């Protein structure tokens, strides 16, 4: 197999107005492994993911997928790349006007462009809903689901592509789920990687989940990656920010006013 990284960022910077979110980040994601990005709320984790499928464009720097530069492509040129990448959005982004089953089927229908085996698709949808523990929910509307159920439908939609996508970007896949459901999702992410060689890029705040799924963990802080390693390595990190984040201890300046 070719060993160049499947996703690569080179010196990517992104600003929104006056706010600098990413300040020249470098990132290379290895094929067939699961990389986790952790970091405080609002540091630009979601922004980073959105650059990979061209939903945001960097102000400076380059983004590559499979060795191809993506940040300069037009929407039309991005289509074949987007076909290979699934995105689980932080806010789920389920389509309100469609039923759960239609939501899950949407990427396949969209990518098939007319040539479609209905029976196979129905089976795929059922299987994926079952995987996330929602069989029998197909006819419901997203608006009628609980927060955790929505998250799971979003996950089902991301994996309901045959053959599975090369890369799945998970933006907080276990947020709002109970510990047991989280465990199921973590195993699901692991399985996709082991069985189908899906590359995972997971953004999370949940250190337990990061530990369970991550081959490698990166920490984003003030627009830069300040840590890169396994959970054990992060726990032993010399940087105070990293250690405190991993252990879930507040930054001293954030609690000064409380005491």
């Amino acid at each position, binding site marked *: 197999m070719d060993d160049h990284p499947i996703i690569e960022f080179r010196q990517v910077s992104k600003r929104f*107005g006056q706010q600098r979110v990413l300040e020249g980040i470098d990132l290379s994601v290895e094929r067939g492994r699961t990389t986790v990005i952790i970091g405080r709320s609002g540091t630009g984790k979601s922004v980073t993911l*959105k650059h990979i*499928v061209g*939903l945001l464009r960097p102000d400076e720097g380059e983004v590559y997928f499979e060795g191809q530069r993506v940040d300069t492509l037009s*929407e039309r040129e*991005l*289509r074949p790349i*987007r*076909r290979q*990448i699934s*995105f689980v*959005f*932080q*806010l*789920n*982004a*389920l*389509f*309100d*006007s469609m039923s759960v089953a239609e939501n899950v089927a*949407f*990427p396949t229908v*969209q*990518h098939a462009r*007319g040539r479609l085996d209905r029976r196979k698709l129905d089976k795929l949808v059922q299987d994926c809903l079952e995987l996330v523990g929602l069989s029998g929910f197909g006819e419901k509307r997203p608006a009628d689901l609980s927060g955790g159920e929505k998250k799971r439908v979003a996950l089902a939609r991301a994996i309901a592509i045959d053959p599975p996508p090369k890369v799945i970007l998970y933006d907080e896949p276990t947020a709002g789920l109970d510990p047991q459901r989280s465990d199921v999702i973590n195993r699901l992410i692991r399985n996709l990687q082991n069985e189908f060689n899906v590359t995972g890029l997971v953004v999370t705040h949940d250190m337990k989940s990061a530990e369970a799924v991550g081959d490698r963990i990166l920490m984003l802080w003030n627009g830069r990656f300040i840590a890169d390693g396994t959970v054990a390595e992060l726990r032993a990190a010399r940087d105070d920010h990293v250690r405190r984040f991993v252990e879930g201890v507040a930054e001293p300046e954030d609690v000064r006013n409380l005491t």
Partner: protein
Amino acid sequence: MGRDAEEYGRARCGCIDAGADGVLERNRSNGEMGSMARKNLLFRLIAAIGGAVVGWIDGFGRFFVFSGHAILAGPTEMLAAGGWRRLMPQAYLVGARSVPVILVTGAFVGMVLVVQGWEQFDASGLADRLGAIVNISVAAELGPVLAGVMLAGRVGGALTAELGTMNVTEQIVALRSMGADPVRFLVTPRFLACLLLSPLLTCYADLMGSLGAWGVYVFVKGGDPEPYWRYTAEVVEMWDLGTGIVKAFFFGGAIGLISCYKGFHCRAGAEGVGQACTESFVASFITILALDFCLNIVLNTLYTVWYGFRSLIM
């Protein structure tokens, strides 16, 4: 129009603004609020106006690119699998669901015109001709404008709210991430529904306006129905009905595009969506009246060129 545009406008004049601020501060600390400060105020005013104008032009540019995209995607969307399945629910919401309110407003407008006009026309012995005047006003002017305004209020707000919510819940970026064209998927069907059904709604408004006027004329004012219809048939031409329909196409299309644009570009949060709805209604309303004015000039010129002058009261 649009947050990006505003930001852009502000960014454009930002450096000037900051400079002016600095000078103003220094003057104040000297206790010398003289001509310098006033000059800087003027400077800042010009900068602010300039920024706003740039923002506006930028917003217009974006709007026209967006509109062009939505319109050009029309044929593809209609021929695509599922295209009709996306259009029909929109047509139902825009068209069928608007019929009752259009019927009621149309009828009231016709009725009120007769109530208002009766005494003047009766006093000069022209009561027979009232029907002609009311019907031509309704067919050429009030029907399409009213249908447009009702559509902007009833449908435009709902479209903006729906697309705005989809925007802030990342549904629009999700569509993009799956390789779908959100403008074609979401805007084109809504635009087509507004474009095609606004003329139909106008016909309903015209019909009810005419009937409402006739009802008040005959049953309340005791007018003679025979000349009412005779003069109407003499004065109101196909041209008048036609101009009303042509206007309705323009109004409907504009409402669809403006509402969708506002939804696509609304700011995050419930407040952003609410504000976008208000902006969308105001923009649609102003656009309807401005388009009406321009279309009247064009259509009247065409009429005079083709048929010459006509007198309505004789």
